[in-house]
């Protein structure tokens, strides 16, 4: 992505589960009383239930991140093998589905150093002599139809994905940042997928689009038990919007993937953008409910 998602400066990083429990227990009181609708009777019992639910949410989301990071390691290995073997057509075929595992957990990459720009940086956003990662290879495959000279780039990509996997296995998360990460993933859709800028050579933007939505949904699903108590109406609204989002995307499925972005009409993109906005707007209410 062209930019970091939120959770900068290590906000997403390393918060012990104890801290999360503490934060959750405190949320009925001091700093944020109106944001937790669950704060009707701030009994120890409720707080502890909320705390457990949040701890479970964090565990569930962390497990999701680990699974996707592992899958990305595998899919990247397969993609890189094809590139290194000079199999242009095969590499092009694998490319969009190899990337979805990254797109699902992008906020994690964004929160740690240069992993996001290194793996997913786009031309122009990075000085030409530093540009590597998936999109550099995308350009070589689609524009030049060649894999010549890409060995250092593919080796670097494998390293960077390995680092992301290490981060996924090492770091712990905070509930509000999981919620914010979901909103940010949809921000990514609005900023670069809906305009076709992300996959400007391959036009496989809709693969990324769906993966971002899925990643946002994973964060929401993990937090749902807590949210159900805090604001069941909001949960119902968000679920309705996710459903509408997938319904809309279904119209563009072809085989295992999607139609290419450059076949979409302005009416199509506007409809998609509108639904992303509707979904993201409702999701943006979540961070304050789990903080």
């Amino acid at each position, binding site marked *: *992505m*062209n*930019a*970091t*998602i*939120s959770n*900068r*400066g*290590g*906000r997403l*990083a390393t918060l012990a589960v104890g801290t999360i429990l503490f934060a959750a227990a405190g949320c009925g009181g001091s700093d944020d009383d109106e944001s937790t609708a669950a704060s009707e009777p701030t009994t120890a019992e409720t707080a502890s239930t909320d705390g457990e639910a949040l701890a479970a949410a964090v565990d569930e989301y962390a497990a999701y991140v680990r699974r996707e990071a592992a899958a990305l390691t595998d899919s990247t290995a397969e993609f890189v093998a094809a590139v290194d073997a000079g199999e242009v057509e095969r590499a092009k075929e694998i490319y969009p589905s190899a990337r979805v595992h990254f797109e699902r957990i992008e906020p994690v990459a964004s929160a740690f150093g*240069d992993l996001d*720009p290194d793996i997913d940086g786009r*031309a*122009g*956003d*990075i*000085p030409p002599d530093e540009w590597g990662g998936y999109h550099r290879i995308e350009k070589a495959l689609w524009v030049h139809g060649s894999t010549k000279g890409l060995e250092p780039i593919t080796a670097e990509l494998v390293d960077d994905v390995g680092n992301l996997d290490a981060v996924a296995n090492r770091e712990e998360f905070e509930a509000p940042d999981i919620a*914010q990460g979901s*909103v*940010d993933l949809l*921000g990514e859709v*609005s*900023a670069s997928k*809906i*305009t076709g*800028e992300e996959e400007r050579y391959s036009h496989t933007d809709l693969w990324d689009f769906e993966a971002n939505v899925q990643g946002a949904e994973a964060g929401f699903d993990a937090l749902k038990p807590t949210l159900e108590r805090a604001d069941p109406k909001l949960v119902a609204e968000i679920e309705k919007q996710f459903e509408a989002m997938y319904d809309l995307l279904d119209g563009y499925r072809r085989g295992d993937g999607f139609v290419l972005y450059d076949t979409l009409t*302005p009416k199509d*993109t*506007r409809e998609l*953008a*509108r639904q992303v*906005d509707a979904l*993201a*707007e409702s*999701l*943006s209410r979540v*961070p*304050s409910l789990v903080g």
Partner: protein
Amino acid sequence: MTNEPKGKPDGRGLTRRGLIKTAGAAGAGLGLGAGGFALGSASAAESDDGTGTVPFRGERQAGVVTAAQDRLHFAAFDVTTTSRAELVELLRAWTAAAARMTEGELAGPRNDEPLLPPEDTGEALGLLPSRLTITFGFGPTLFESAGAGRPTRGAGADRFGLSRLRPPALRELPPLPAEAIEPARSGGDLCVQACADDPQVAFHAVRNLARIGRGKVVLRWSQLGFGRTSTTTRAQATPRNLMGLKDGTNNIRAEDAEALDEHVWAGAEAPAWLRGGTYLVARRIRMLIEVWDRATLSDQELTIGRAKYSGAPLTGSDEFDQPNLAARGADGPVIPRDAHVRLAAPQLNAGTRILRRGYSFTDGFDEVTGQLDAGLFFISFQRDPARFEAIQRNLGRDALNEYVKHTSSAVFAIPPGTREGTYIGQALLEA
């Protein structure tokens, strides 16, 4: 204004000023502004109640350090004539018209020929001078033969014989982070920056200059700005941009003569015709409004490095407190590593400062996404466009890039001002 030009014959011919005085005398609801104006422009000069005028003539062009007016109409032109004499004729005519219009006069002398179109298009009749400034600039392509880089126009190699006078610093910007440049609204041979406190006065200026130029120049692109986002004098309060943030708190002000000399005015490094002038960089920065609007308050503040409501840096309590980039909190720097104020800070840019003079804009909505097409039309003046380039490069990892996209780019050399009897760019064309 309620008065119609007709029925108000005036022995000296119809002028905008004359009309205003008449209307004021007739008590036609002009209020204090007109009364003040009737006393003479000297006392009203630079007043922002509409009556103020900013002199067009002077050592430097107006519209650079002039207290930023509220409205902008910026236009870039391509020169279509291949005749150097016609280019000179155009610049003479533009200079004369600009001098008149900034005084609140018609663009040209009034004619009463029934069978001729009026010299002035008329929509500013009855409007106050509104501190109109008109600033002219020369783009890199003016010094080139046709077809160098940007789309072909004009003809012949070095069409005006100016290439030897082109400063090396005058060139289009290379690809920079966070941009999706649209060539159709970038570049240009000439630019006109019209700023005024009344949008119709600014529009009138560009329209009449375009009209005067017909047959010699064509409009390449233009941009309207509806609200200033920068402060160029100490007396002005810092305005907010469309992100709801105070912008350019650290801007260079008109009073900082030393900083202007160091960072804005071109010196001995520039060719003689440009010394005392400057370079204008224009960038249309589209804001991804919908995405920004759903970012949490905390995320917005960490993105910029300032508190939203007070404008104070996250390390301070007052807007004008200097950001403390070294301050650390429990999780790392208080002003995050990728915060906009950090990456744009002079300390991280070899001390570089630029004079910003941007305006908020909206062009309706984006056809592709249905989202608001709005943002900041960024204008900066600096001694060398490379200074802007270096800062923008440093912003490659700016957290703000998640919410903005540069969609146009242009660079113009802004020659020094004119005296009575000289025309804009004379030192260049008669060098």
